């Protein structure tokens, strides 16, 4: 049986963007604080101080449970009853806690004050606090703030808010110079791969946001073009555009097609010839195809549903359908920014069941009646669904695993193949 009919089934012109169902109800998602779990590992000289409640601390601890044995570069300033009595006191308290953190970690160069639901509701002015503390630690520590409250951010939007807060700090790119900025947290190994590819293409100066050290912020200016490496960075994109940078419209670098489209977008600005582009990317594409082939056999023809969670649903669904031959039953996403998803939506089937927002009970009802071969969901839902006989993939793994780029295309497919392979193996 040959199920490898996985060449792109439709070109952009043939395909109308799918319609959208909006849903409201109970949302089963993390708030933006969860982003700290990967951001604090990426930016090695930064510390994230959440100003919030015991719930915030508990969420971070639970979401970061796997990393409990590393010294965290995050902490929570837990609001107590007496803090809620008067705001003046709250600012003093925050100064004291910040001092405690910086004393304990003298290696820290950037301190993020991270707003939460309770700090938003009591209208604690973290912007002012960051200004004040920046003054106190001038020359030693940069103090920034952003809100990752569940009232305003869903899961990966926390990263958007964090990167957005860095944008005004970026130095100015001297006029007349050009640069390409890749925006969104990528594992170091993937960053290095992209850096090599762009170097071979002759594209650059190349920078990444966030940088590995917050003290080495990339420059931005009207000569900057930027590519989003993650699909959830709308606010950061707008802020960069406001500083004169040019957003390159592209698919996201998942799978061969996505990575090609993404790289090509950057290469076009530097007027790289088609021949050169082909020459540089061909070996990596061939490797990626080899990596994918093993998993296509497992995945082709299998049905998949996405519950809304990481905001990565649309590009990954596109990859699984077009490159792995999977059938998309439902693709739900917490929110849809059509501007950022333009290239992706064009690649999705016009009759796709695309959902924005969530009513978890309704979605689970649909899941039970659809009975897909695999569904993508949050950690809270995975085991209960497994117990109902459905195979699952935790969405949080998609933000922790290197999945972008050619050399990770096979790994990305493997994430979805593994539960199916395991299902076939087990006799218990």
């Amino acid at each position, binding site marked *: 049986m040959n199920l490898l009919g996985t060449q792109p089934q439709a070109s952009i012109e043939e395909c109308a963007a799918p319609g959208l169902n909006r849903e409201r109800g109970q949302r089963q998602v993390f708030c933006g604080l969860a982003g700290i779990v990967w951001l604090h590992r990426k930016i090695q000289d930064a510390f994230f101080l959440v100003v919030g409640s015991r719930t915030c601390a508990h969420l971070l601890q639970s979401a970061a449970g796997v990393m409990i044995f590393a010294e965290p570069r995050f902490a929570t300033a837990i609001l107590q009853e007496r803090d809620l009595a008067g705001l003046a006191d709250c600012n003093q308290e925050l100064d004291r806690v910040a001092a405690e953190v910086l004393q304990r970690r003298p290696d820290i160069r950037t301190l993020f004050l991270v707003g939460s639901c309770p700090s938003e509701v009591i209208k604690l002015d973290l912007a002012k606090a960051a200004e004040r503390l920046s003054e106190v630690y001038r020359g030693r520590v940069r103090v920034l703030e952003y809100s990752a409250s569940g009232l305003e951010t869903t899961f990966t939007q926390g990263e958007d808010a964090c990167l957005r807060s860095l944008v005004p700090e970026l130095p100015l790119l001297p006029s007349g110079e050009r640069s390409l900025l890749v925006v969104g947290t990528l594992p170091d190994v993937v960053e290095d791969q992209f850096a090599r590819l762009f170097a071979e293409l002759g594209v650059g100066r190349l920078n990444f946001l966030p940088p590995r050290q917050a003290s080495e912020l990339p420059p931005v200016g009207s000569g900057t073009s930027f590519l989003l490496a993650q699909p959830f960075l709308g606010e950061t994109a707008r802020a960069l555009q406001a500083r004169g940078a040019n957003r390159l419209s592209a698919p996201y670098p998942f799978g061969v097609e996505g990575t090609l489209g993404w790289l090509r977008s950057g290469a076009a600005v530097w007027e790289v010839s088609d021949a050169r582009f082909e020459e540089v990317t061909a070996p990596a594409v061939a490797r990626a195809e080899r990596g994918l082939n093993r998993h296509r056999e497992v995945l082709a023809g299998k049905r998949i549903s996405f519950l809304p969670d990481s905001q990565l649903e649309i590009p990954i669904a596109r990859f699984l359908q077009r490159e792995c031959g999977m059938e998309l039953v439902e693709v739900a996403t917490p929110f849809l920014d059509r501007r950022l998803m333009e290239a992706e939506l064009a690649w999705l089937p016009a009759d796709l069941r695309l959902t924005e927002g969530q009513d978890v009970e309704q979605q689970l009802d649909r899941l039970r009646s659809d009975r897909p071969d695999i569904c993508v969901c949050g950690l809270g839902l995975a085991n209960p669904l497994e*117990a109902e006989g459905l195979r699952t993939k935790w969405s949080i793994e998609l933000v922790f695993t290197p999945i972008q780029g050619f050399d990770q295309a096979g790994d990305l497919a493997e994430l979805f193949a593994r539960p199916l392979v395991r299902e076939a193996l087990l006799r218990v």
Partner: protein
Amino acid sequence: MQLTLWSYEGPPHIGAMRIAVSMEGVHLVLHAPQGDTYADLLFTMIERRGRRPPVSYTTFKARELGGDTAELVKTTIQDAYERFVPRVLLIGESCTAELIQDQPGALASGMGLPVPVLPLELPAYARKENWGANETFYQLIRGLLKSRVPAPGGEPRRRAPDERPRANLLGPSALGFRCRDDVVEITRLLDSVGVEVSVVAPLGATPEDLLRIPEADFNICLYPEIADQACHWLERMFAQPTVKTVPIGVGATRDFLAEVGRVTGIDTATKAEPSWSRMPWYSRSVDSTYLTGKRVFIFADATHAVAAARIAAEELGFRVVGLGTYAREFARDVRQAAKTYGVEPLITDDYLEVEARVSEAHPELVLGTQMERNIAKRLGIPCAVISAPVHIQDFPARYAPQMGFEGANVIFDTWIHPLMMGLEEHLITMFREDFEFHDHATPSHLGPGAGSGRSRDMGLESLGEGVRNSEIVTAWAPEAEQELKKIPFFVRGKARRNTERFARELGIQTITVETLYDAKAHFGR
């Protein structure tokens, strides 16, 4: 504001969830912002539960704050009732909802639902998880049973002469430490002395089960952190005595049986100990003599901390060098126990403070929670986990109770295995020049790679600030440094620290071989 890196307890609404998740037929509606649903994963991932927690969240967002969140509360309650048809509905709120003051409890009570609706007060900025669980369990029992409280002066129930006495096991809960297996072990233990278990709650109980609580002769407060308020109320209202001894350890298990005997009139003292009670003999076996006087630091919830201290001191012959708890509500018990063992009690929920105290006490074994496991790992000290907060590893597939005689066996194994074994310790002392007995060698029974980082020299680099900042700089004479290397690596760090402390106290600036042996004599047990 309190700076928190890791916390021992979640907010009080997590405690309420633990009660709801433990039970059947109970549903909790939480007024909480988007994101608070993370709590589900505690149960489905850490405990590997195959069912979603019976909890519905309002998950309000910023745009709803301007509008009518109260309406959202009512819709959520109505939907949850219709979908899950619970027999009891609990209503609570998380930290953010508490600030916007929608009074979800009052809203729910006004909805005329045909089942008992219990509003919970869970002060998120003052209380914590265990308090929330304790309060929720109490409110649930009180709410369901208050209309059945007998009139004062009535005759308590007398059991027929041929009837076995019946006990309720109160306190085991979801996310509790080894509750699942403790219930099995205690049921078996009680059966062996002729006592029947009537209701186990909250774990696995239905609201109807709670209604049967007064039918039993007495209650066993198995986990005071969860059940002491409920037991106290039942004692006052239904004249049910409470057995309060927590049967963790051999001695405590014997005391527990004696207390059960007093309450029921059964002679438990003449019952032979079961054949599977191996811990007393294992501890008396000559192999265990090497355990004598091992320095142990204990930090846990109050119940497990106090029990561990007694086991350590009386049943294994360890020396308790630190004892503490994060459970302020039960600090008194720990203070009292600390007095018995002559140590300063440590009552704190500040992980950093615990870390500092462990580091100062130079223990050879840490008994703690997952947090202390982290601390011990960093300090290179063996550690066993004895209490919540829990980790997925604290829900082993095998039977591994902490309570009763089998619990004592399990404890013997789990505490002893991380330590160097007796004969191995002697061999290393005899053949200290052996090239394989170096700083990075791990105890052989742990296998290769088991202790990467475990046995590293606990020397200067892991010392607290106090030593580094000390005014007198003590230096080691080369021959003293050589002599130090002849001391087995696993005690070398302690020897180094003790000698330096000794030298500092006497104002000695250069440590010689003499100083080393003087210090050994000074600190020797």
